């Protein structure tokens, strides 16, 4: 963390020094205050409200500020009664976790090697910047458009189907390419590998190149160097990237909605559906559940490595 402490020699008289410290502190407060205020108003307070409202009652058209666990009980409806059959909420979470796991492993695999190439094989600084920019530019363009962009390729009459039919691999176009779990995972990987590349690259670029040379001189094979030096030292980046990807996919409802043809349920989509039905407490209860699961995953990941040291 980039908190630098001003330790210029204290030659000033104690009283004056205390005064100076006080002024500095209030200046820091003035500087950081506006950002704090924005987060307090549009992030912290809303979060508190989500937790509070999740324990409110509601009817068809409004929320009622009275304590009730209806939001939660409605959500878990049928979970005990219908055992051993899985209830809707559990099925939805299992599906979300499955999508999450698939996306995570693919983004990690692709992101790791892209970062590795950029950090270790691209030698000139200029090329490193140019190629990094090449990976970053799509991140600055619209996600929806990058989703729509798959339609001409994966659709019924899309390029992939045309190619496969043309080459004689299949007789008629396959349907599962678009608006399916396949297209959802493909789009998620397409959109979010960037979040894996950046932190892993950041960790790799800090690895002392002499370590690798030393391993090489000591007779380690490329594979041994990778497993024993590069991967352990890239772990912080891998963990940070994983946190990004997992939290994005767990709460995603836009990509799953658009690429799944609005047919695939997910944790995020439940919240969206409850909201469009104006069942705020139910939506909030689902948000609290999602938040809980996300926090569990993140704390499990941060167990592996102390992320704080890396920022």
């Amino acid at each position, binding site marked *: 963390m980039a908190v630098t402490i001003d330790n210029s020699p204290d030659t000033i008289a104690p009283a004056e020094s205390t005064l100076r410290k006080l002024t500095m502190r209030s200046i820091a407060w003035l500087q950081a205050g506006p950002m704090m205020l924005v987060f307090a108003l549009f992030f912290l307070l*809303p979060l508190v409200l989500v937790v509070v409202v999740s324990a409110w009652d509601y009817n068809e058209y409004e929320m009622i500020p009275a304590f009730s666990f209806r939001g939660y009980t409605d959500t878990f409806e049928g979970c005990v009664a219908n055992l051993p059959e899985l209830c809707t909420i559990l099925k939805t979470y299992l599906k979300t976790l499955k999508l999450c796991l698939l996306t995570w492993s693919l983004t990690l695999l692709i992101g790791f090697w892209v970062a590795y190439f950029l950090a270790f094989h691209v030698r000139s600084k200029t090329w490193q910047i140019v190629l990094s920019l090449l990976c970053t530019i799509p991140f600055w363009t619209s996600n929806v458009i990058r989703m729509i962009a798959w339609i001409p390729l994966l659709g019924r009459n*899309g390029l992939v189907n045309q190619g496969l039919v043309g080459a004689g691999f299949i007789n008629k176009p396959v349907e599962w390419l678009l608006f399916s779990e396949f297209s959802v995972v493909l789009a998620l990987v397409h959109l979010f590998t960037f979040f894996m590349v950046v932190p892993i690259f950041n960790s790799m670029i800090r690895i002392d190149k002499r370590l690798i040379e030393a391993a090489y001189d000591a007779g380690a094979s490329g594979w041994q160097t990778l497993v024993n030096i590069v991967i352990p030292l890239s772990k912080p980046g891998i963990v940070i990237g994983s946190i990004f990807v997992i939290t994005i996919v767990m709460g995603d409802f836009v990509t799953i909605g658009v690429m799944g043809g609005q047919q695939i349920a997910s944790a995020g989509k439940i919240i969206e559906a409850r909201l469009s039905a104006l069942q705020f407490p139910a939506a909030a209860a689902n948000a609290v559940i999602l938040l809980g699961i996300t926090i569990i995953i993140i704390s499990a990941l941060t167990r592996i490595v102390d992320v704080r040291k890396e920022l």
Partner: protein
Amino acid sequence: MGDKRPRSFYILAAFFSAYVLFLYGPMIAIYILSFQGPDGGLTFPMNGVSLTWFGKVFSGGGIVDIGAAFKRSLALGLVVMVITVVLSVAAGMAFRKPFRGASMLFYTAIASLIMPSIITSLGIALEFRLVDDFINKHAADYGLGWLAEGHTTAMGLFTSGLGAHLTWTLPFGLLIMFAIFNRFDGRLEEAARDLGATPWQTFRHVVLPIILPSVVGIGLFGFTLSWDELARSSQAIGSVNTLPLELQGLTTTVTKPDIYALGTLTSAVSFVVIFAALSVILVLQARQRRQGSDAGKGMV
């Protein structure tokens, strides 16, 4: 290590190229298809080349009022950009001194960054709904009856929408500031102070010129992230929609290439902004190299 490229270089270079193709290929496909002829469909082959679909977008052509959404997104993006730059630079400066609440602000920013967007969006929607309910029911009790008169909602583009976008752009701005000051030589400020510069002069004439290229970068993030933002706005934007929200709505109903034309136009704005920002950064860096240091140049 020798100068000859190892075999792994060529394998990984191929892998990297495939990744870049994967990134850009689909986007380029829709840019091409947006020039589809009047009888063309959503997929290849091209059925002639025309500007029909761009014309449809500009004339409204049956789909929602795109022009208005375009302007709204542009205005919101610019406001978000300015606020992100100012607040991030200010907070970044604050973090150079120890202050109570520093780590709290830092963790809040990180939490805001990784919070699933739907939760943030829901929270802001709830907050504004509660405010609305309160105004409608109780404003009169406090002699604020005029407030409740005709009040529908406090939610809007520049209230809840702006807040939702800032929870997404500010963490990026703050992290970029951290990256800048990690590499910043604090002795420059001390030197300025020793020469009698006031804190403001130190900032204006020493710190700002050095960090300016990165500050432009923060602006780039601020605008583009807002211009494309979807998930956080979705529940918190009020009665009007931004461009990405309109686009998302169109995905389920539109069967003609006008959606591609709209996509091409939206991307064009992004690319213009990216190109402009990167050019400014390059010019600023070149200027810094020219004027930055006279070390080793003898007497000047």
